[in-house]
């Protein structure tokens, strides 16, 4: 054979080798796709994508959750509805909402001060009168609105203070926190409804906080002043003569028109047609430890999709209302009966669901009912809360936990997004009068516990406009 012939054979062999390598790589890529794509397997069963049934997978997810989401929990738990920077003057007083960077900067610096205050011995703590507490709001101070009300032990734990380190003589519950930062720092704590007030003198100044507050106030100087008064300043918290309406002393009153707020869009993220089989549903099922590939599911007559695995049932109705119920003991959330651990665990769940929904809104702990062991969470977007008014739910999520075990979990699944539109909310008194007009035919006295700007979601899809949300606490009817 000639030299030329040998070269041709060698080239052919090389081409064959290249082609063979290409075929092997292709078979590996396509084969792996077939193995991992569950839809290609009968009845949705797939050994490989069922790998999380193994113990090591559970351990991995637990470790991952432990290390990755702790900061999210803290933010969701220890988050006031609003921070108000008091300057001693009503014109320069400003409200800082949770959609601003300053909000979290102030919160972070204040956490350090509160940690110190809560661990001081009783000689630094003194009981004070209601008027003394309220006067702290007319000086250079920072007010934190925790109107959802936390047990002081729980708030301490959220701040990283252990129960045995906590100083005595604090109000049992805390609804309002004030840090007076000038000339020296003092912390004022209150449970307004119980009439329990105390002051903790720290005796030193925290320059970083003072600098931050000065920066916030000076950056606000050029904008149109929005005069904020507390209800107690205008004496609306104390009835006089024929005055039928009394307001909580901490309600912030805007006597003039407030600025415009963004319009948001509310959408049920799970289309009723695809509820049974989509990525969002799968992610949500995994959060509840339900395996999307092994559980049983069926659709009820009304369109509600029901997923069943062992003792747990998870339903998602056509309006996006999720209901999870377990029979028997329930699903273990945390070891030991510790409220903080429970809140941490359920905060992780609500946070993960929100992540799965790809939601622009955040969820935060908005209330606790100790009698029924129910924790309430609500959505928050553009710095304003969303008030849920559907027949099934009056909060974004209602979660029942008993002895560290999750008993039931309800959530209105919503994907909120911010539109380009803006709207002017109605005037403070217009909204208050409209709300009270509903009762005025039969009421003798009315107490308004909370009034703040927010969005209302009745469950319908579409644009939502910011307006005043009035929470009536007590109505005394005519004789």
């Amino acid at each position: 054979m000639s030299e030329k012939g040998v070269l041709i054979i060698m080239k052919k062999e090389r081409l064959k080798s290249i082609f063979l390598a290409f075929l092997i790589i292709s078979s590996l890529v396509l084969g792996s796709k077939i193995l991992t794509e569950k839809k290609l397997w009968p009845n949705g069963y797939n050994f490989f994508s069922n790998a999380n049934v193994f113990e090591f997978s559970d351990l991995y997810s637990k470790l991952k959750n432990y290390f990755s989401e702790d900061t999210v929990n803290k933010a969701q738990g220890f988050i006031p509805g609003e921070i108000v920077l008091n300057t001693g003057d009503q014109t320069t007083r400003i409200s800082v909402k949770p959609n601003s960077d300053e909000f979290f900067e102030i919160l972070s610096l204040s956490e350090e001060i509160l940690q110190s205050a809560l661990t001081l011995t009783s000689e630094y703590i003194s009981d004070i009168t209601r008027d003394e507490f309220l006067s702290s709001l007319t000086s250079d101070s920072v007010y934190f609105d925790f109107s959802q009300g936390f047990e002081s032990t729980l708030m301490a734990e959220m701040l990283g203070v252990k129960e045995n380190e906590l100083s005595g003589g604090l109000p049992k519950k805390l609804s309002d926190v004030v840090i007076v930062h000038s000339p020296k720092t003092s912390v004022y704590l209150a449970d307004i409804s119980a009439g329990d007030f105390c002051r903790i003198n720290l005796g030193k100044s925290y320059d970083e906080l003072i600098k931050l507050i000065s920066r916030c106030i000076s950056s606000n100087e050029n904008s149109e002043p929005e005069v904020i008064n507390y209800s107690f300043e205008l004496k609306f918290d104390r009835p006089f003569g024929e005055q039928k309406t009394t307001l909580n002393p901490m309600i912030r009153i805007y006597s003039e028109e407030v600025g415009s707020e963004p319009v948001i869009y509310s959408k049920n993220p799970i289309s009723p047609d695809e509820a049974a089989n989509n990525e969002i549903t799968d992610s949500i099922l995994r959060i509840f430890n339900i395996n999307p590939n092994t559980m049983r599911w069926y659709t009820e007559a009304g369109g509600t999709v029901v997923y069943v695995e062992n003792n747990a049932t998870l339903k998602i109705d056509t309006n996006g209302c999720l209901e999870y119920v377990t029979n028997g003991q329930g699903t273990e959330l945390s070891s030991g009966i510790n409220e903080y651990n429970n809140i941490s665990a359920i905060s992780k769940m609500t946070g993960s669901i929100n992540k799965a929904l790809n939601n622009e809104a955040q969820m935060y702990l908005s209330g606790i009912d100790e009698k029924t062991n129910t924790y309430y969470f609500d959505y928050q977007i553009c710095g304003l809360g969303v008030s849920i008014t559907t027949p099934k739910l009056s909060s974004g999520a209602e979660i029942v936990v008993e002895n560290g075990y999750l008993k039931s979990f309800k959530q209105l699944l919503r994907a909120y997004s911010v539109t380009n539109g803006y709207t002017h909310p109605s005037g403070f008194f217009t909204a208050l009068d409209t709300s009270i007009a509903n009762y005025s035919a039969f009421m003798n006295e009315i107490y308004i516990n909370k009034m703040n700007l927010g969005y209302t979601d009745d469950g319908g899809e579409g644009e939502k406009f910011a307006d005043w949300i009035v929470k009536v606490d007590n109505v005394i009817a005519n004789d």
Partner: protein
Amino acid sequence: MLKKMLSALLIAAACTTALPCVGYAAFSNTVSLSETGTSNDIIYIKRPESHSASTSDRTYTISAVGSQGTKIRVYKYNPSLGYCTLIKNETKIGASGLYSVVVDLPNESNTFVVTAENSNGSQAVRIDINKIKKSTVDKLKNVTVTIKNLLW
């Protein structure tokens, strides 16, 4: 004689009927500083409680309570004119019975007249707000704290 008596009775009846109407006469765009109205219980000024106050701020919020439907206007005294001019247009008190208004304080001494009218009559209340230095306010606060501490 009977005619005279009848005339007197008719005049008395007419006066009785007309008086509330006269009392309910709307305030115009200007009012005198001495205006008091026909009644003193149409509104109750909650802030400032004593109808006068001192502040270092450039605005002040006046608050009041009254019955639903009461019409409120706010006037500011102009010393060069010698009377008060309207600065806040008419507002009706709603179902809450609460009212508040923010007024600017451009001068050291600022005098306002808040007028209120409803079917029971009219009322005008004079309110004086003085502007003082912030350092004076702080000193006053310290004095208050010291007195409180002494009392305790």
